């Protein structure tokens, strides 16, 4: 068990036109763990997620990745540093083949420019080969091998979700951010994808999992952070969270109060 922190979120605040979506949020993620961020809908999970992956710039606070302050850096820079992500509502490249989709992950590991691509220099050929090889390996591991030359839009939904995961993994990330990876899947597909995610820390990949459904993450996470109304309300192991009255209140309390 490794205790080194891979990502630290320090006092992050993000507002939209005066509305506070994330408020002075702190979180620490350790290397090679699966850390879950849960909370009811509208708690600000996706906003925080977008701050970490560089889509939003926070008004206050810092995001530190492997000791380096990465606050406000652009997403493509962060990908090169080793942070990859998926999207809550699936954003694959519909009119490209599955292989091309996954090859996009290796884009940031390539160097070749316009001229070497036109003249196909030996270095460029070697690089292309490597890009394709990494992509093919991930297609194989995610069980998408037979669809590699199929256009991504022709895949069924569950496989498209898997494709998005393969694409993110092809960036060779140290930290993988997954935004509700099981939404829209049937039970069998859910099980498959969670089992796959469970194997990632062994490959040296840390996972930050965002979910609104508590049950999905209970079995798999080492630590869980609970978020509500933009603030952290609890953090701990699955058992601690399961028994925490504040968490129960956040999930059920308000409805009970009304009823």
């Amino acid at each position: 068990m490794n205790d080194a922190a891979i990502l630290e979120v320090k006092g992050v605040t993000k507002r939209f036109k005066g509305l506070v979506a994330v408020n002075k949020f702190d979180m620490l993620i350790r290397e090679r763990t699966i850390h879950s961020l849960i909370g009811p809908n509208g708690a600000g999970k996706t906003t925080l997620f977008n701050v970490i992956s560089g889509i939003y710039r926070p008004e206050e606070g810092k995001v530190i990745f492997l000791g380096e302050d990465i606050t406000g850096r652009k997403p493509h820079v962060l990908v090169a540093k080793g942070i990859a992500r998926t999207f809550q509502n699936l954003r694959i490249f519909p009119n490209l083949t599955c292989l091309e989709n996954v090859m996009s992950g290796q884009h940031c590991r390539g160097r070749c420019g316009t001229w070497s691509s036109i003249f196909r220099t030996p270095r460029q050929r070697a690089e292309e080969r490597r890009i394709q090889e990494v992509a093919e390996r991930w297609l194989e591991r995610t069980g998408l091998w037979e669809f590699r030359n199929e256009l991504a839009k022709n895949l069924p939904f569950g496989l498209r979700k898997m494709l998005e995961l393969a694409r993110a993994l092809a960036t060779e990330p140290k930290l993988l951010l997954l935004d509700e990876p099981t939404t829209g899947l049937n039970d069998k597909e859910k099980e498959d994808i969670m089992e796959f995610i469970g194997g990632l820390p062994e490959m040296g990949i840390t996972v930050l999992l965002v979910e609104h459904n508590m049950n999905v993450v209970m079995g798999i996470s080492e630590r869980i952070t609970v978020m509500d109304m933009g603030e952290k309300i609890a953090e701990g192991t699955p058992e601690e969270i399961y028994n925490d009255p504040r968490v129960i209140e956040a999930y059920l309390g308000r409805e009970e109060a009304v009823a």
Partner: protein
Amino acid sequence: MVTFVQQFLNGLTIGSFYAFIALGYSLVYAIMKLINFAHGDLFALGSYVAYSFLVWASAALTAALGLWGALAVAMVVAGVSVAIAGLLMERVAYRPIYPAGRLPAVVSALGVSIFIENFIMLVWGPRYQAYRSEFVPVGYFQIGELRISILQVVILISAVILLGFLYWLIEKTTFGAAVRATAQDRATAALMGIDFRKVIRFVFTVGPALGAIAGVMVGLYYRQISFSMGWIYGLKAFVATILGGIGNIPGAMVGGILLGLLEAMFAGYVSAAWKDVIVFAVLMLILIFRPTGLLGEKVAEKV
């Protein structure tokens, strides 16, 4: 001071032409997310239809209703015929292609634009046509050195009335709310029981009709019309649409007036030859700093 007032009035007049045309763009864009490139040509078509109608009937109509009455009838005729053309265009060139995506629709719109422009050229000839002096009102008010034509005053008053009416229709009525709802989110609006076809019909009736009315006004104001004038007016009106925030109905009106004023002031005080360059440069500057227009809402992409 006199120059200023004169240019200000000119700017308001030109601005109301732009506002009329811009409304058509903005309505269609709000509902269909499509730049209707043929809109400028519908405006030109309106100008020509009214021209022919006046040549044919102005003598009889003027005798019966007076000159202003004849002009009002001509506007209605132009408005109605161009609205029919607009509906036809939607049915033939947009509705079947719309499901295929936005780029095919843009090409289709360009196709319609080329069609209408050449149709006008074939019917009325490639040379300028002039609105005859017998159907253009000539009176003016003289206030000191300032000379204001009655036509200009009438144009401005009718612009205020028409734009005011449209504002009320879209912002204050239930039907207007349906239009705005469809603009926001077509699927949800449909779920709430709003008839999309009805909204489309509205948009493709009112937009072209307003464009045609602007066409008649331009004909009366400048006297000269040409088959190719649709595109430069269309383009300027589109700039006005962007100024106001694309898809924003009151914004299109404000954008049109602002653009007219800017153009008139620049032409009056700096250089007439460079005025269009300035119009487009201002457009670029606005979009660089406010990517969704002056009055447009900031639409963040949902991630």
